């Protein structure tokens, strides 16, 4: 009996160690440009670590490199879930530097578009190789049925990655969470405003449940 108890304790300790030493899951924040991915990444990082991840901007393609915030510990119902947050550049199939020339010089616009294209390629690479789960962020004031969204959700599903859809910008008058939920009924849709910090409790409950 003593031997059995000892063996049981030993297995239990080994299991605990195995799980405690498990690498935190890398959760990629994906979506089209200007959906509010960096605003969300910053909100999560500030809420749980005190630091921001990147610069936010109304000009598309502000995030042109994937950025990782490691060991973000989210506490829910007495349990702690540790994840790495990867903020990725917005995915698109086209980039035209003339889109930026109202806001900056031609040289800067060309540089921005070149960096943006590299960033999109990098985001796709992370998706194929390096993330364990995806938060897909959409601007709820925009039509969610676009080819990029359909393709990316298809790519994520084909890799069997757990995915949560975040209907962001619910503070805007034109916001429609229903439109997003109906476009992707196979996935959980969570409404929020990353900018205003609305509905973040439900956001963290879902992150802990899906990626914990």
């Amino acid at each position: 009996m003593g031997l059995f108890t000892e063996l049981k304790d030993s297995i239990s300790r080994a299991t605990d160690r195995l799980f405690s030493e498990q690498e935190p899951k890398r959760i990629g924040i994906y979506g089209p440009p200007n959906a509010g991915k960096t605003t969300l990444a910053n909100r999560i990082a500030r809420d749980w670590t005190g630091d921001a991840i990147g610069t936010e901007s109304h000009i598309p393609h502000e995030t042109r490199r994937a950025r990782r915030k490691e060991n973000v510990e989210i506490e829910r119902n007495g349990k702690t879930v540790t994840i790495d947050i990867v903020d990725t550049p917005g995915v698109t199939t086209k980039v035209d530097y003339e889109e930026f020339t109202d806001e900056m010089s031609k040289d800067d616009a060309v540089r921005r578009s070149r960096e943006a294209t590299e960033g999109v390629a990098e985001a796709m690479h992370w998706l194929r190789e390096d993330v364990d789960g995806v938060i897909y962020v959409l601007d709820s004031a925009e039509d969610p049925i676009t080819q990029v969204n359909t393709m990316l959700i298809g790519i994520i599903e084909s890799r069997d990655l757990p995915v949560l859809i975040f209907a962001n910008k619910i503070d805007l008058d034109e916001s429609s969470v229903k439109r997003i939920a109906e476009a992707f009924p196979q996935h959980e849709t969570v409404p929020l405003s990353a900018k205003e910090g609305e509905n973040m409790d439900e956001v963290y409950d879902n992150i802990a449940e899906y990626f914990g």
Partner: protein
Amino acid sequence: MMPEATEKETPDGVQIDLISGQRMDELASMEKIRMILDGVHAGNIVILEEGLTPDEESKLIEVTMAEISPDEFNGIEIETYPRSASKDSSLLGRLMGNDGPPAKLTVIGPANQIETLHKDETLISALVSRN
């Protein structure tokens, strides 16, 4: 030797290449992507009878991004019809470990020439400029 899908560009028209599923089946993933992008670079509209797998779509985006060049190539417009719901939920197909070919009609063209690419439930409509 099979004929090239992208033939000589006519000076005042838009070439449309309709590529059969059979032809695509004979190609490796990167060959498919190369064929599509070579066509799009030449200003053609490429229509795939059976589309690409999600992995190939991911690589198409990545390679497209690498080839974007200011004032020369802005990227692509793309629209597809997904597989029918009945095919997606084929229990037998899933049990057999075979989801079958993607079988989705896909229209791809150069972003700077496709002025609008609109899709509704039964129609993809492209408005293409000649230059």
